[in-house]
């Protein structure tokens, strides 16, 4: 077994590479693939190193090549092949693909402590959905929110609230998919309210406001209508807003 360490390690590396390359659908982006392969390389090397016998077994074949204990054609192939491989990989990496420059984007941007809506200043920290206070009227409010949603939001966020409305494909970033656990279900309603009310132009720089197609909804909707729409997107997508324990939200206020 130890005799074959080198071959096994190399084979394993290639097998993992092939697997990641071929069996992830849609294909994993190069950046992720690079992370994965770096880790796999390190892991294989560490594993080989972690046992003295294994390590010696691993070193034996390259040692044999460099010390000239193998046949000349093998020596030549390895010694010539390695530089060629290095050059080829370098060439591949250096050739520009002229893909669009990557623009880093903060997915959940940092909300401000307060913002203005329709001339009124709102403190975000203490903000809760006022419409939740009356559970009896909740269904009615959700139904109203649904109407608002379908007259305004669904063009991008879709009938199924999955971010796939008729306009969705035009925009990058794609409109939020409310059914994704990583979106509204991990946010407080106050955050969602801020996003809806101030739209793309209300985003901080790190979230590239110039790209976001989210309209500034306070221009078209009253505050209560926004809350209704928010009620609906939670109800419609089957998620619940993130909450904190009672009484802690206003600790930093005096």
């Amino acid at each position: 077994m130890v005799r074959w360490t080198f071959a096994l390690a190399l084979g394993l590396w290639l097998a993992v590479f092939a697997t990641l390359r071929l069996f992830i659908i849609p294909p994993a982006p190069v950046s992720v693939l690079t992370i994965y392969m770096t880790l796999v390389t390190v892991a294989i090397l560490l594993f080989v190193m972690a046992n003295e016998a294994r390590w010696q077994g691993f070193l034996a074949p390259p040692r044999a090549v460099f010390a000239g204990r193998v046949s000349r054609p093998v020596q030549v192939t390895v010694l010539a092949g390695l530089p060629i491989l290095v050059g080829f990989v370098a060439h591949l990496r250096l050739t520009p693909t002229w893909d669009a420059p990557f623009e880093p984007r903060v997915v959940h941007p940092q909300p401000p402590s307060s913002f203005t809506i329709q001339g009124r200043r709102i403190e975000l920290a203490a903000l809760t959905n006022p419409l939740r206070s009356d559970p009896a009227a909740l269904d009615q409010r959700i139904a109203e929110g649904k109407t608002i949603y379908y007259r305004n939001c669904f063009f991008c966020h879709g009938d199924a609230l999955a971010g796939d409305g008729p306009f969705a494909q035009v925009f990058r970033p794609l409109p939020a998919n409310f059914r994704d656990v990583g979106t509204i279900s991990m946010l407080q309603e106050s955050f969602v309210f801020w996003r809806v009310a101030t739209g793309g132009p209300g985003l901080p720089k790190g979230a590239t406001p110039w790209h976001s197609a989210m309209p500034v909804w306070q221009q078209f909707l009253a505050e209560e209508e926004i809350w209704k729409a928010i009620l609906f997107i939670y109800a419609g997508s089957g998620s619940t807003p993130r909450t904190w324990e009672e009484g802690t939200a206003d600790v930093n206020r005096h």
Partner: protein
Amino acid sequence: MLLRTFLRIFVFVLLVVGIYAYVGQLVPQFEEHPPKKKVITAQTGRKELVAIGQELLRGKGGCLICHKDSETGNTRGPDLRQAAVHAPTRRPGLDGEAYLLESLRDPEAFLVEGYPKMMSSALKPPANLTPAEVKAVVAYLQSLGGVEVSTVVTEDDAAQSQRAAKAVHRGRALMDQHACTGCHKVEGEGGDAAPDLTRVAERHPPAELLRKLNDPAAWTAPGFDAGIMPSFAEIPEGDRQEIVAYLAGLSGIAYSATGAASPWSHEGVRLGMIILIANILMLTALAWARRRERREVT
């Protein structure tokens, strides 16, 4: 061997640290700058002025400690949502804007019924707004009340504001606290036993004022008797600095309250003495012990 090992390991440290730093370069790079401070000029647009006024109301102005501008809030002072609406009818001869300006600059000129005399001029501490900022607050009050925003910041307001912005406000409170205003008058308030300090900084630079506080005998204003003023060397240095900064500000002189303030000033000295004595005692004890030890050996 030691040095070689050290070098090998040092290279290893550089390598590991280098990898981490390299990965740090791979993530997206951007700087985030704090929001720009708003400076009011004669060109500031109406909308912006209203926004700044609103900011002042809840921030620097501290107005919401007593007033309210929304459904919830304090009721020690009148509700500000209706202020602009009632303004034109409050004082005969003053239109809405003029009344609002007056009520901010000189609140005691007219008291709304049912509220005590408790507000100090917005131009003075604790609010310490600049003339332009007062106008911004008026603009916000007008927009809040739904009347036309008529107030306009003039070049003169802006220029005055630049001067006033340098004033420091904590000094005034400290002067009251340390009883300076018992004898001195400042900004029209205080006793008459000693010189009016409102413009004192025009005649004496901050360093001299500080010296006077530490050592009242240093100099005395003409026309007043020397030897009456007590020494203020015992009050914290930071407080002395604040007072001087405030007085300097009244004369339009820039002086930071924190100039030479050191939190160590007095406690430092006292503590130093204690430590010194402790050290000396210990030293003596040790010398004594050694002598005994030597005596025992011999």
